[in-house]
């Protein structure tokens, strides 16, 4: 059911309940003014609400009752018992209709007119008696109604209260409780991992985790509100503004059902208002101008919202004149922000983005509506502060559209966790552009005075060490090559590199505010808790950049370069270039790369053809060694993922991210290579992800593994057979009476009962089976045994 409608039903019900007592009291004493007022308010509100919806019958009824009651309130009419029962009949009818609305049914026609007629004041006894006659007739019709509808009514009697109102505080409290539970769960999970595998505990624990995740999602959803609530206030705003500016604007909404965190809705209200003002003031032309251009006299402002993943995209578009890039560019030159030469080099798109620059506006005159200097730069900063982003597309003469991307909730942001001096910090991921190793051969460090600079892929950007910013490391002592550089792009297009000791992971973190004394450092934007319950600070990058005077110096060619890449990206596939252990350049599709890890040589275990690497306590199959020897100290690994399985690929060095523009020329000689592509005119082999994962994926653990019972009293079964069975994806039944999917028996124990099992595999001692032994499998016939187990598995799934 529609959200607003649900609200309407809930509110009407609430008032019905509240006024129930009043109605009875009023019936006892029709001259009671206070009761009369309460009931009048009720019918008045119902009438008002009906205006929003298309409920002509409800409106007519409530309107009639309201009229009669207002006569009484004005003293023009004395309420009498006839009026009371007529009003009560109407209120009953409203209640029934509300039930029908909620159930989505049509309320049977007829009966309304009698009810309304009953309200007519009795001039004297005669009419009053007519009304009295009406009343019983009414009750008859009402009875008919109920009898007609007896069945559906009974059905909808139960799910009466479909929605309740709750204070937001209570929700916050529950949310906090669930967050605590998640932390407790994480703590428990760590302890369980340390204690080793315990099948009896792990199962229920996993179930608990799943339930907890579901509850958390449900609670998050409770805090959501439909965008309609935001949209509903906009038509009025647009109307007022357009009247003030002598323009005619129509609004169109799409996606009002998209849900967003309540707080987030409040946060975007101001930026949205600003965009609307701009659109009406600068974008949409006056009616005369529009007619001249062959457009419709009335301008159109469209709002479209869509959810994609954990982001909401909101597009605000007008059909006005578009952004005047020429004038914007001139203003930028006049304001001394860019030189003429710089402007000339800019693409149109880049020029349009100038409106996000502080102090630029295309409005010649400061109107009361916009152009007061609080510009799009503030809008952009506000949107980015809540973890969103803003972009625009403008076509001269056709209009402008702003694309806003917003995270679903305010308090949860996507963050990159980095390490510095043994501590972890979080960086909002929206700022992170790229991550590069300081040791990478295409990164060069330079100094200009006291300022560190780093040149990477033709861009020279200032470089700050997190250790230096935090005062834990002095700039002079820093081994820049050992650092990992996080390229940060701020709202104002400034780019700088942040040198950190390590990049850990992507994480969605819940951000909490911090104490004012800590805020004063202007380094942190908030705090968050790690999985193990330890606190971690969220860095306030714009503020750090400002304090380091980066905001206005060190302007680089970066934005322009970036823009070309954006254009290029549309038709290309991103890949990652690396040097294999043999030093030759290869590439892998970037989408496959989950992250880059550096591990010490001890974390890698090679035993014959079995190669594995241990990263953060998990074992991954290791590939790439066929090309050369690992270094003796630190090994760089690409962690590749096909979405479910992960494989690590040993590389000599990670070179660069690049765009694969041309085609891949397939190569059939080497199955590990998908083909060869041209990057910067050099042929680069691209790894074949399909072959890689086909060869190395770990057997997928099924949600509910099949169980297999093995002879309990045999050492051989326990020590040799058990592991094999587990490796085949079975769980060894712990209990002799448990219902197992497969039971393995030893032939020499033929007299032992198999126990409850769906299928039975018998193993014999001797390689050659004779006679009745033909059904059995030799106990060291590995292939035969696995085949039998596999067959049992398919037998079940089929």
């Amino acid at each position: 059911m529609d959200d607003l409608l649900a609200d309407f039903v809930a509110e009407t019900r609430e008032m019905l309940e509240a006024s129930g007592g009043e109605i009875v009291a009023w019936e006892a004493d029709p001259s009671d003014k206070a009761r009369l007022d309460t009931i009048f308010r009720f019918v008045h509100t119902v009438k008002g609400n009906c205006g929003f919806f298309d409920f002509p019958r409800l409106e007519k009824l409530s309107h009639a009752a309201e009229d009669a009651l207002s006569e009484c309130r004005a003293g023009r009419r004395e309420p009498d018992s006839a009026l009371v029962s007529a009003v009560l009949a109407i209120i009953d009818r409203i209640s029934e209709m509300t039930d029908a609305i909620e159930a989505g049914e049509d309320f049977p026609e007829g009966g309304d007119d009698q009810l309304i007629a009953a309200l007519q004041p009795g001039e004297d006894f005669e009419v009053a008696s007519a009304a009295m006659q009406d009343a019983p007739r009414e009750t008859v019709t009402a009875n008919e109604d109920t009898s007609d509808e007896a069945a559906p009514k009974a059905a909808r009697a139960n799910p009466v209260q479909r929605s309740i109102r709750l204070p937001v505080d209570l929700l916050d409290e529950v949310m906090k409780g669930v967050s605590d539970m998640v932390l407790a769960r994480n703590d428990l999970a760590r302890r369980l991992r340390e204690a080793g595998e315990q099948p009896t505990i792990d199962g229920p624990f996993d179930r608990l985790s799943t339930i907890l995740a579901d509850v958390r999602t449900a609670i998050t959803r409770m805090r959501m509100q439909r965008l309609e609530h935001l949209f509903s206030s906009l038509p009025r705003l647009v109307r007022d503004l357009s009247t003030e500016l002598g323009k005619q604007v129509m609004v169109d909404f799409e996606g009002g059902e998209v849900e967003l965190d309540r707080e987030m809705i409040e946060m975007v209200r101001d930026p949205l208002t600003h965009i609307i003002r701009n659109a009406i003031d600068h974008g949409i032309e006056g009616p005369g101008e529009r007619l001249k251009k062959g457009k419709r006299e009335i301008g159109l402002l469209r709002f479209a919202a869509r959810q994609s993943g954990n982001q909401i995209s909101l597009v605000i578009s007008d059909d006005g004149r578009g952004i005047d890039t020429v004038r914007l560019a001139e203003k930028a030159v006049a304001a001394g922000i860019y030189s003429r030469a710089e402007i000339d080099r800019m693409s149109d798109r880049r020029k349009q983005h100038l409106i996000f620059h502080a102090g630029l506006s295309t409005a010649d005159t400061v109107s009361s509506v916009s152009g007061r200097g609080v510009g799009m730069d503030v809008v952009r900063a506000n949107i980015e502060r809540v973890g969103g982003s803003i972009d625009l597309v403008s076509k001269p003469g056709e209009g402008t559209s702003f694309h806003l991307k917003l995270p679903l909730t305010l308090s949860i942001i996507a963050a990159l966790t980095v390490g510095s001096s043994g501590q972890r910090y979080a960086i909002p991921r929206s700022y992170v552009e790229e991550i590069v190793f300081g040791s990478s051969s295409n990164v060069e460090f330079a100094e200009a005075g006291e300022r560190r600079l780093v040149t990477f892929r033709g861009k020279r950007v200032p470089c700050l060490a997190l250790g230096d910013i935090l005062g834990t490391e002095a700039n002079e002592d820093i081994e820049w090559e050992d650092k990992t550089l996080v390229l940060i792009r701020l709202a104002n297009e400034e780019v700088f590199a942040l040198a950190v000791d390590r990049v850990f992971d992507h994480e969605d973190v819940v951000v909490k505010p911090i104490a004012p004394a800590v805020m004063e450092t202007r380094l942190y934007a908030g705090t968050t808790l790690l999985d193990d319950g330890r606190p971690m600070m969220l860095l306030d990058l714009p503020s750090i950049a400002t304090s380091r005077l980066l905001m206005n110096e060190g302007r680089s060619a970066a934005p322009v370069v970036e823009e070309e890449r954006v254009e290029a990206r549309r038709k290309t596939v991103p890949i990652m270039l690396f040097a294999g252990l043999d030093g030759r350049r290869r590439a892998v599709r970037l989408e496959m790369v989950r992250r880059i890890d550096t591990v010490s040589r001890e974390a890698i275990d090679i035993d014959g053809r079995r190669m594995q690497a241990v990263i953060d306590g998990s074992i991954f199959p290791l590939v790439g060694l066929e090309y050369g020897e690992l270094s003796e100290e630190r090994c760089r690994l690409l962690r590749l993922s096909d979405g479910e399985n992960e494989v690590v690929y040993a590389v000599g060095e990670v070179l660069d991210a690049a765009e694969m523009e041309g085609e891949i020329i397939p190569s059939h000689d080497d199955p590990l290579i998908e083909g060869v592509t041209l990057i910067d005119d050099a042929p680069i082999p691209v790894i074949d992800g399909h072959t890689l994962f086909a060869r190395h994926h770990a057997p997928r653990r099924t949600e509910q593994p099949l169980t297999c019972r093995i002879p309990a009293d045999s050492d051989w079964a326990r020590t040799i057979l058990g592991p094999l069975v587990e490796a085949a994806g079975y769980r060894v039944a712990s209990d002799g009476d448990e219902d197992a999917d497969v039971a393995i028996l030893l032939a020499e124990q033929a007299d032992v009962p198999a126990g409850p099992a769906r299928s039975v595999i018998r193993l014999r001692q001797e390689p050659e089976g004779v006679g009745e032994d033909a059904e059995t499998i030799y106990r060291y016939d590995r292939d035969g045994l696995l085949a039998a187990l596999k067959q049992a598995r398919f037998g079940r799934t089929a």
Partner: protein
Amino acid sequence: MTQLLLQCLIAGRQAAIPASDVQSVIEVDEITPIPRTPDFIRGLTALRSQALTVIDCSLALGLESAGDQPDQRAAVVEIEGHLYALLVDAAYDVGEASSEPVAVPGGFGPGWQRAARGMVETETGPTLLIDVEALIAGPLEEAA
């Protein structure tokens, strides 16, 4: 006047925090330092799913700190929506004040003067009543 007080030891002196301000007394074991904050802000510690700002009361008064100790006790207070853990040398019982806070001629000495509301009599003798808000503002406020 029967104000309930949490009696504690700060920089070796008897002090008291109004019990109505105190949510709980916790043991602080792990503190995550926050670089570039004033010394008296020792860092963050987690209490259930909330991060508390740990304040070293001695340093906040501008006195010598007892430094890191095992099983440090802290009083948890909430001020303007933020939670703080006030590290004290020791936390004793909750007691009753038997007098109104009064000033002492000549003051309580540097540091204490700023963050004390006055002296109160308790069963265990005269005690300084701490003004929590002044305390967490730290010694810097005074210099400014």
